[in-house]
């Protein structure tokens, strides 16, 4: 492997100092002169008609600037209003989930706004609601909402580049927003050839991204200049700009989006309440600020979908998979948005299978509409398929890891939809876990201690990776340091990796490089920071821009030193002639002769712009050792190994951070997290006390094993890192629980109650 000086080395976050000193500005920290505060009145019913909405008393309250309902807002494209949650700024006539904003108060301070909420009078007529996705599929189910004519998937495509078009429901009105079907070979024949056929149903609940910073936006409309400025916590500032401009018919030159530091996103912070804030700012012509409370964020943002999977699979005695038949039902909530297609593709995408039939349904119900959450739709599908693989391996008396190795896809194998895989590292990840202490020592485990049982489980999963064009600029400053300008919102440490890339290409220490995420008015374009694609795409653009800057530096140096450019090299902030090292010029001097008054040479401005066309799928294989208390039903994760193919770890410190953090989110999904709704569709646990995120005391040290199978297009072979580590975790835990107590839990989270029920210790 090539010797690198900057990339591949653990590097401290470039923006870290502001974060440890409290100086970093997050959106809720923004305060503009004359700024007003927004509070939302959210409907309490899962499905209702608004019979009367009277804001008179609220509007008369001292300190209240405006009380806004749908009737006060500009009319948007009706097709989009019906199918895209964001366009439905405030409920108009019909409320389709409990927690849907019905009115907005704009007031001088948050207290007055809060008080005014209580003075808004609303009369609802409750309508039949449907809350369960399987019920919603039935022919006689009530309709969750008025039928859709069109489905807008522009945001989803930013996460997952999927070459399958979902078929949208036609004809008779149903709750099905979209459906698809993949087939290969002959499933009946594949099942007939099998020595073992296993049929199981798996359920996964709605879960929330759990970012610690609730959604926040400040929108400032200057009526005299016609300029709209939006400060917001978003993973995709250009996406927000483009959508706001389109919605309110503003030229993009008049819309400036400043994507501030994000307090966590995980897919959930793209474009949600920014449009409403913009509409309110247009109305009151003053800056307005909306910061969701935690309960509003849990109730009314866009969590990950609930899902149900029916699987029927066949395997030969030697562990060869012969058939996979599956039906996946994703509950999209009240608007389309579940990434059902990618879930179905990866359900059949990890293991070679000559005969498959996968049917997917995206179903509407009267729950909050869903959105992206780290590997959208895939952790749930992986819980299903990787529990199923484990069941088959164990029933056949085979080593579950060897069964995965036997069937694991590799380069050239087709995905459902028949796109072939490029070179991937699934097998390498399986081998790394197979060779880990945790896995090798599993036979020597003390399996019993009083009522407690221990077990070890393994699971695999992956993510195909998103694609979007990107650009970057690299500039030589007057003192020889380097500035990098990008438009990507840094959520995972990508700016640090960009600094490493520029430093590598320009032979400088990382400390000499400054990376800035500019707002949409000044930065070159970047796609949304989602789909594990920021380093993969924007990183390539930075590398290209740095190479361009280096060419310019060498050209100028060649003229100045009167040495042919081929004889020059860069080294530690200096350009020198290879054969005559005394002939040299520092970057500082070069900067001077390209920027000073009357300088003879043009400034160095490197440009990088790329169109990414090839995905680089990344895989993760994980093994868990758990202890189950058979008296209390409590599961503790004692040891954990997480292996991931990242192509090339540009910053191993950030890569490990992603692997550790993703894995612990997966432990949350596996053991604790579930949005619980009552039979009228009201969220019962809208707080961080009741919606339980893993704490430091719940989880063990996570051992990260970085695997590097280079990608073709990524910088230095890098692949996307963010998504894969959350994917197989819940399956690994379920498999470890089975290993410990011999019973199979097919519904996550694996709560003490579910353990005790499975053990027959709790009955209805």
């Amino acid at each position, binding site marked *: 492997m090539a010797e690198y000086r900057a990339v591949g080395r*653990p590097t*401290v*976050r470039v*923006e*870290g*100092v*502001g*974060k*440890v*000193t*409290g*100086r*970093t*500005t*997050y959106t*809720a*920290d923004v*305060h503009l002169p004359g700024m007003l505060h927004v509070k939302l009145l959210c409907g309490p019913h899962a499905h209702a008609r608004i019979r009367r909405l009277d804001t008179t008393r609220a509007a008369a309250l001292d300190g209240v600037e405006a009380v806004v309902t749908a009737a006060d807002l500009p009319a948007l494209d009706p097709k989009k209003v019906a199918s895209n949650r964001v366009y439905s700024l405030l409920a108009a006539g019909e409320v389709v989930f409990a927690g849907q904003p019905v009115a907005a108060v704009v007031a001088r301070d948050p*207290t007055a706004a809060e008080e005014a909420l209580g003075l808004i009078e609303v009369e609802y007529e409750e309508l039949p609601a449907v809350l369960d996705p399987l019920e919603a599929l039935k022919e006689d189910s009530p309709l969750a909402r008025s039928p859709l004519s069109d489905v807008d998937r522009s945001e989803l495509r930013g996460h997952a580049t999927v070459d399958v078009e979902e078929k949208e429901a036609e004809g008779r009105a149903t709750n099905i927003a979209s459906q698809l079907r993949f087939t290969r070979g002959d499933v009946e024949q594949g099942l007939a050839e099998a020595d073992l056929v296993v049929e199981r149903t798996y359920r996964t609940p709605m879960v929330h*991204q*759990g*970012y*610690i*910073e*609730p959604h926040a936006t400040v929108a400032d409309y200057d009526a005299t200049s016609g300029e709209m400025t939006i400060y917001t916590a978003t993973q995709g500032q250009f996406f927000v700009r483009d959508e706001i401009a389109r919605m309110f018919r503003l030229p993009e030159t008049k819309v400036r989006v400043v994507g501030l*530091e*994000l*307090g*966590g*996103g*995980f897919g959930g912070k793209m474009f949600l309440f920014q449009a409403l804030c913009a509409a309110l700012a247009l109305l009151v012509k003053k800056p307005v600020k909306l*910061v969701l*409370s*935690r309960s509003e964020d849990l109730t009314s943002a866009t969590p990950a979908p609930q899902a149900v999977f029916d699987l029927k699979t066949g395997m030969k005695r030697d562990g060869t998979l012969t058939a996979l038949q599956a039906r996946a039902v994703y509950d999209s909530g009240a608007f389309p948005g579940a990434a059902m297609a990618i879930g179905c593709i990866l359900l059949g995408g990890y293991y070679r299978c000559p005969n498959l039939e996968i049917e997917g349904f995206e179903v509407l119900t009267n729950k909050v509409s869903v959105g992206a959450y780290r590997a959208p739709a895939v952790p749930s599908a992986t819980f299903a398929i990787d529990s199923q693989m484990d069941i088959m391996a164990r029933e056949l008396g085979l080593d579950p890891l060897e069964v995965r190795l036997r069937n694991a896809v590799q380069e050239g194998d087709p995905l459902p939809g028949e796109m072939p895989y490029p070179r991937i590292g699934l097998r390498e990840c399986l081998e790394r876990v197979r060779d880990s202490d945790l896995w090798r020592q599993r036979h020597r485990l003390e399996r019993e201690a009083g009522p407690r049982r221990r077990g070890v489980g393994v699971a695999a999963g992956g993510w195909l990776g998103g694609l979007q064009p990107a650009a970057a600029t690299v500039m030589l400053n007057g003192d020889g340091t380097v500035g990098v300008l990008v438009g990507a919102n840094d*959520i*995972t*440490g990508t700016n640090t990796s960009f600094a490493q890339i520029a430093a590598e290409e320009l032979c400088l220490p990382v400390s000499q490089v400054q990376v800035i995420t500019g707002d949409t008015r000044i930065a070159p374009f970047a796609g949304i920071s989602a789909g594990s694609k920021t380093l993969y795409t924007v990183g390539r653009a930075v590398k290209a821009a740095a190479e361009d800057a280096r060419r310019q530096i060498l050209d100028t140096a060649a003229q100045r030193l009167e040495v042919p450019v081929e004889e020059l090299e860069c080294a530690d902030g200096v350009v020198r002639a290879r054969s005559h090292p005394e002939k040299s010029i520092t970057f500082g001097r070069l900067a001077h002769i390209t920027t000073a008054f009357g300088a003879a040479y043009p400034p160095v401005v490197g440009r990088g712009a790329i169109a990414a066309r090839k995905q680089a799928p990344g895989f993760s294989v994980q093994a868990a050792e758990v202890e189950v208390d058979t008296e209390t039903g409590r599961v503790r994760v004692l040891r954990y190994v997480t292996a991931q193919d990242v192509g090339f770890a540009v910053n191993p*410190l*950030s890569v*490990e*951070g992603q692997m*550790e*953090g*993703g*894995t*612990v*989110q997966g432990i949350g999904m596996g053991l604790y997290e579930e949005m619980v709704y009552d039979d009228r569709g009201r969220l019962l646990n809208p*707080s*961080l*006390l009741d919606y339980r*995120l893993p*704490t*430091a*005391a719940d*989880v063990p*040290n*996570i051992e990260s094993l970085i695997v590097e199978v280079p990608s073709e297009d990524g910088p230095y072979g890098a692949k996307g890192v963010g998504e894969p580590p959350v994917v197989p975790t819940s399956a690994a835990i379920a498999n470890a629980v089975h290993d410990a107590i011999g019973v199979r839990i097919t519904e996550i989270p694996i709560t003490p109650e579910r353990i005790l029920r499975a053990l027959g210790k709790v009955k209805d």
Partner: protein
Amino acid sequence: MPKLPLRLRVNGEPYELEVEPHRTLLEVVRDDLHLTGAKEGCGTGDCGACSMIVDGRLVTSCLLLALEANGADVLTIEGLARDGKLHPLQQAFLDHGAVQCGFCIPGMILAAKCLLDLNPHPSEEEIRHAIVGNLCRCTGYVKIVQAIAAAAERPD
């Protein structure tokens, strides 16, 4: 609503304020003193992002009425670095890659400081228990625990 007088010492600076009785310490420190390092993640004392050290004790400042802190000595994240030099915990958090989105970090570092003030050489288990009220969604806590352990090892 009538305002009542409030005296506070924050990061060593004395403040004389008038505040409405319903306002929390977090609101007053963020909105009146413009020290926005402490964050509101939940407003119900469950996430720890608003942690401050009040008279030597770690508190979730979203649950403490500002007037209850009358006369108190308050330390926020802004008061930790001295003379342009990071506190050893801040430096350790950076060096160990314990900082990702950063939203929980001010509270997390103050929770760690409280631990080390009472127990200068904690075990891993003691560290994990000390930060159990500070939720982090990015890191999985691995590098945070490492950073606190490393800071404990450093001579101050």
